[in-house]
C-alpha cells in the first residue's frame, strides 16, 4: 500500500513536470516522456538479478507503474482513458518476456540492456499510440526519420540519467 502511494505521488509529479517544465526544453517539438522512461525502468529493475535484485515484493512494481503512469499520461493527453495504460502494460509484458530469456544480467551490461529495451519500448509506444490516434481520433501519422531519431536520442539521455539515479539510490540503500 505504501509503495503504491509512493508510485502515485511519483508519477503525478512526473506528469506535472513533463507537461509544464520539460516541455519548455523541447527539441524540434519533441519533449522527453518521463513517465514512459520511469515505467520501463521500474519494469526492468523488477527483474531478478537486475537493479533491485528482483525481490519477491518488487515483482509487480512494473504492472503498478504501467497502470499508474498510464493513468497520468491519459489524464494529460487528449485520447481516451486507457490507451496509455494498455500500451504501458504491453510494454511491461514485453520487457518481462524479454528479460525472462536472460538468467542474470551482469552489472556492467545492465545499462546496455536497458538502452536496447527502452528503444524498443519507445518504438512500441509510438506505434501503438499512432494506431490508437488513427482509429479513434482519425489522425494519420507520417513517419519522419529525423524526428524519430531525435525522439529516441533525447529520451535516451533522460533514460540514462534516470537509470544511474536509480542505481545510485539502490547502492545507497544497500549501504
Amino acid at each position, binding site marked *: 500500500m505504501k509503495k503504491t502511494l509512493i508510485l502515485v505521488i511519483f508519477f503525478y509529479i512526473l506528469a*506535472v*513536470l*513533463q*507537461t*509544464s*517544465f*520539460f*516541455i*519548455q*526544453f*523541447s527539441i*524540434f*517539438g*519533441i*519533449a522527453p*516522456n518521463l513517465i514512459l522512461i520511469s515505467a520501463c525502468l521500474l519494469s526492468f529493475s523488477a527483474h531478478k538479478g537486475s537493479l533491485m535484485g528482483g525481490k519477491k515484493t518488487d515483482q509487480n512494481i512494473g504492472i503498478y507503474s504501467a*497502470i499508474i503512469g498510464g*493513468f497520468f*499520461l*491519459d*489524464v*494529460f*493527453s*487528449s485520447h*481516451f*482513458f*486507457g490507451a496509455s*495504460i494498455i500500451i504501458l502494460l504491453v510494454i511491461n509484458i514485453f520487457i518481462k518476456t524479454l528479460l525472462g530469456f536472460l538468467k542474470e544480467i551482469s552489472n556492467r551490461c545492465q545499462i546496455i540492456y536497458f538502452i536496447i529495451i527502452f528503444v524498443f519500448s519507445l518504438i512500441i509506444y509510438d506505434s501503438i499510440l499512432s494506431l490508437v*490516434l488513427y482509429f479513434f*481520433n*482519425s*489522425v*494519420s*501519422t*507520417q513517419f519522419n526519420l529525423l*524526428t524519430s531519431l531525435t525522439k529516441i536520442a533525447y529520451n535516451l539521455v533522460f533514460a540514462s540519467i534516470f537509470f544511474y539515479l536509480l542505481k545510485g539510490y539502490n547502492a545507497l540503500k544497500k549501504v
Partner: protein
Amino acid sequence: MKIVSQKRKNFKKIAIGIIILGATLVFLNIFQKNIRNTFYLISAPIQKTFWKIGNKSSNLFETIANITRLKREAEELKNKNQELTSQIISLDELKKENENLRAALGIGLEKDFKLELAEITANDISQSYILINKGSKDGLQKDFPVITPQKILIGKIIEVYENYSKVMLISDKSSVFDAKVSEKEIYGTVNGRGNLQMFFDLILITSDINIGDVLVTSTIGGIFPKGLLVGTIKYVQKEDNKPFKIAEIEPFFNIKELDDVFIITDFLK
C-alpha cells in the same frame, strides 16, 4: 495436479484483473470530463509555477547558446527599427486620412472581436495541445479560435471543462484550415504535421509563392476569422508531375514564449 491448480489460480487472477481494469476504464471514460477537470484544477497552480520556471530556464539556455546570433540580430533590428519608425510616421498620416475618409463616407469601423483573456497552464506531451485556465463557466465553447495578443492564430478549443479548456494547436496532425498569402491571391490549406510543424498545401502550380511570404487565414473554410497571422513560407516544394505545390511553414507562434492568449468568443461560423 498441483501445477494444474496453480495455473488455474493464476488464470483466474489474470481474468479478474482484466475485468476490474476494463470496468475501471469504462468508468473513467464515462466521467472523463469531471476527472480531467479535477486533476487540472489541482495541478494548475503547480503547473503554472513550473511552466514559468521552465520558461525562464529555457530562455536562459537559449540566450547563452545564441549570444553571437543575438548580437547580429540586435544590429539588424536596430536598422529595421529606424526604417519602421519612418514608416510609422507616414502610416500615422495615412491613418488620419483614412479616418477622415471613413467619417466622410459614413462607414463604421469594423467590429472588433469579443475577446476573453486566458493563461496557459500546461502543454500536452505531443506538443499539439495546450491547457488554458478558462472553461465553460467563463462562457467558452468548442471551436472558439485562440490567438495571441499580436493576432497570431494558435488554434481552436476542442474540449471545454468547467474551469479549463483544451486548445488544439494549428500544428496538430488533425488540424486543417484555409489560408492565403498576404497581399497575393494565392490560396491553399494549412495542414498540421505535429511537433509544431505545418505545411501549406494545394497551392496552384502556377502560383508565385516565395520564401518569406506571410500566410494569413482566409474566409473560405469558415473555421477561423480572416486575417489572422499564421506563419511565413520556409521552403517551397514543387513536383513537376503534380498539379499543386507544397510549402513548409515557419509558424509565427512560439509555444515556449506564450503565457497569455485570447479566445475569440463572438466568431460565428
